[in-house]
């Protein structure tokens, strides 16, 4: 599993250009899916099973895009100025290395001697070893992702793009482990989540699911001066109650709790005051979809070194497999307030 995670995280897939990561995931899931399609937005959609009595159309979405940079100007000395694609913090950029889609690598810096506060993205430049605009191999509009090798720390694993290749891994392994289910399950490896939850929206429209579940990372709070008590790495997969884009459907929460019990795994409840996941878009398509999110606690989100715990990942796969393999009860009867 670690080997697959290493491959998933090290493969490029900036928002809007997910071709490489899509090809890798496709190869991995092809033997296990009944039907695979790619839509207009580049979402990879794998169907498993047909709806049977008591079953539902279930959409499980993990976004395959990652944050990165896009060249906005090449100056006369060959330095590349950039715009952010997704939530890139300039703080994590100093000395970081990037690789453009055409293979060119470079280092990010800014004129720190003139700097009194954290620079904006527009003040950063990438040095790709060029000496003029003419000999610079990068052109305006070219995109780049961060370069940072996969680090195996035993129970903990670190890489760029753990957000959300860890969700992709959970979805892939769940797809592999489902033996029998009354549900018609659509595994969506979605695009453009980091720039505004876009791929999930159009794919959910096409699938028209009866239940939607996103699998994504959430910010852990267990660093030295973390600002909230929950969640923690190793505390089990997180059942999201709300974030900036979603108040999870109570019955989806209940189904996750039940699946956690069935699978014998510890879970933690998650409340995030901001941010959003694919579930935020899924819940609002057409006439509305009951939606929730299973999260993996992650440290240093949106830095080139995002850390997750192996046990959380394994338990998330067990939970999601149980959930997807059984009928899902959605009636709000008996739920008060």
């Amino acid at each position: 599993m670690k080997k697959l995670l290493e491959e998933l995280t090290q493969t490029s897939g900036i928002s809007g250009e997910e071709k490489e990561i899509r090809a890798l995931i496709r190869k991995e899931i092809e033997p296990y899916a009944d039907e695979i399609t790619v839509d207009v937005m580049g979402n990879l959609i794998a169907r498993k099973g047909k709806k049977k009595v008591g079953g539902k159309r279930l959409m499980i979405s993990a976004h395959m895009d990652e944050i990165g940079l896009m060249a906005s100007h090449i100056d006369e000395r060959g330095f590349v100025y950039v715009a952010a694609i997704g939530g890139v913090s300039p703080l994590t950029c100093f000395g970081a290395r990037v690789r453009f889609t055409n293979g060119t690598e470079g280092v990010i810096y800014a004129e720190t001697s003139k700097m009194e506060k954290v620079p904006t993205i527009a003040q950063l430049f990438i040095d790709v070893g060029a000496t003029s605009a003419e000999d610079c191999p990068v052109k305006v509009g070219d995109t780049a992702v961060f370069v940072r090798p996969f680090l195996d720390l035993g129970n903990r694993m670190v890489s760029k793009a753990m957000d959300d290749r860890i969700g992709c891994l959970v979805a892939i392994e769940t797809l592999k482990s489902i033996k029998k289910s009354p549900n018609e399950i659509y595994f969506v490896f979605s695009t453009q989540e980091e720039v505004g939850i876009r791929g999930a929206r159009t794919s959910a429209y096409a699938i028209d699911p009866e239940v939607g579940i996103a699998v994504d990372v959430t910010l852990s709070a267990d660093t030295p001066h973390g600002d909230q008590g929950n969640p923690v790495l190793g505390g089990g997969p997180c059942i999201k109650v709300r974030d900036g884009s979603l108040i999870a459907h109570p019955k989806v929460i209940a189904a996750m709790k039940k699946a956690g019990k069935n699978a014998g795994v510890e879970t933690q409840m998650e409340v995030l005051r901001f941010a959003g996941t694919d579930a935020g878009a899924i819940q609002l398509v057409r006439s509305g979809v009951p939606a929730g999110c299973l999260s993996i606690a992650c440290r240093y989100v949106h830095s080139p070194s995002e850390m997750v715990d192996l046990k959380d990942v394994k338990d998330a796969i067990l939970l999601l497999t149980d959930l997807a393999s059984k009928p899902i009860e959605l009636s709000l009867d008996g739920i008060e307030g």
Partner: protein
Amino acid sequence: MAKKANQSIKLPLIDQEALSLLEKLSNAVGVSGSEGEIRTIIKQELESCSDQISVDTLGNLIAVRHATVKNAPRVMIAAHMDEVGFMLVDKDEDGIFKFQKVGGIDDRALAGKAVQVGKNHAPGVIGACPVHLSTPAEREVIMKSDSLRIDTGPGSKDLEVGDYGSFATKFHQLGSSLCGKALDNRIGVATLIQLFKNAPDSIELIAAFTVQEEVGLRGAETSAFNLMPDFAFVIDCTPANDQQAWDKSENTLYRTRLGHGPAIYTQDSRTLYDRRLIKFVTGLAQEHGIKVQLRQPASGGTDAGAIHLTQHGIPTLSISVPGRYAHTAAMVIRKSDWEDYLQLMTIVLQNINSEILTEERP
């Protein structure tokens, strides 16, 4: 660069007729939510050459020209009709009105500007305390729109709260540049009218003149849902901030540059543009020797933001004419950019085909 002779396509030029149409469109008033005047002009222009022409619930004008071949791609081109402006919100005595901005206008671009308000375009001016009577400290502070008033002079009885206003600049030429109010996006409207009149038979062309773009891409959202084309192009006017910096340092944040041709979008706040279409359009431009530029990736948005996420998704590209001083009383565009733009879009429509989508999105 010499333009390559092409036997099949006669490339249009910006002639006096085109300029007159743009002048008429620029001088007409159509602030978001009140696009009737613009709609009327477009209807007059297109009624005789449309197979279908209709106005939807929000006020979008949709004109369709059918293809003469079977299974032709359905191509939507959207150009928003609305412009930024004002709305009267409170009436004082003597024709003095409190107002709010409609769409994004910088407060610094308001004081002292001539405006026109109400259905009859009553002249007015945005008044402010003169330099003689203000203190140095006051002059350091930007005058906010809610502290300014529109002065229409006494006797303007037919004006009431809720009436719209716009800048009153008349269209004129500045050398080889063109200057006017609302060139964002009457330049797109004028271009779409021309493209529609000369549409090729190989596609079903759906011209969507949209409403309320400046207040949140609203008309585009409903029209795209209804039309669901195979492709969408959004033609608009995009800001250029291309003058040299005061200290002569290299300008790295110009967005687009006048005289560098139509600006093709790669990314903005609302959209990551379909690279299959970017490749298709830049390839055609190169082949035909038409100058194009890639707009710098940055914030902002066009109707594409709403269109590309419609239903299960629509492959969409925005291409704009670069313009200086956007959303002020006087926007400036270059005539040569407009001509390149019209020619590029003409070639795009002649060549577009469904094969572009057989390759998966990168």
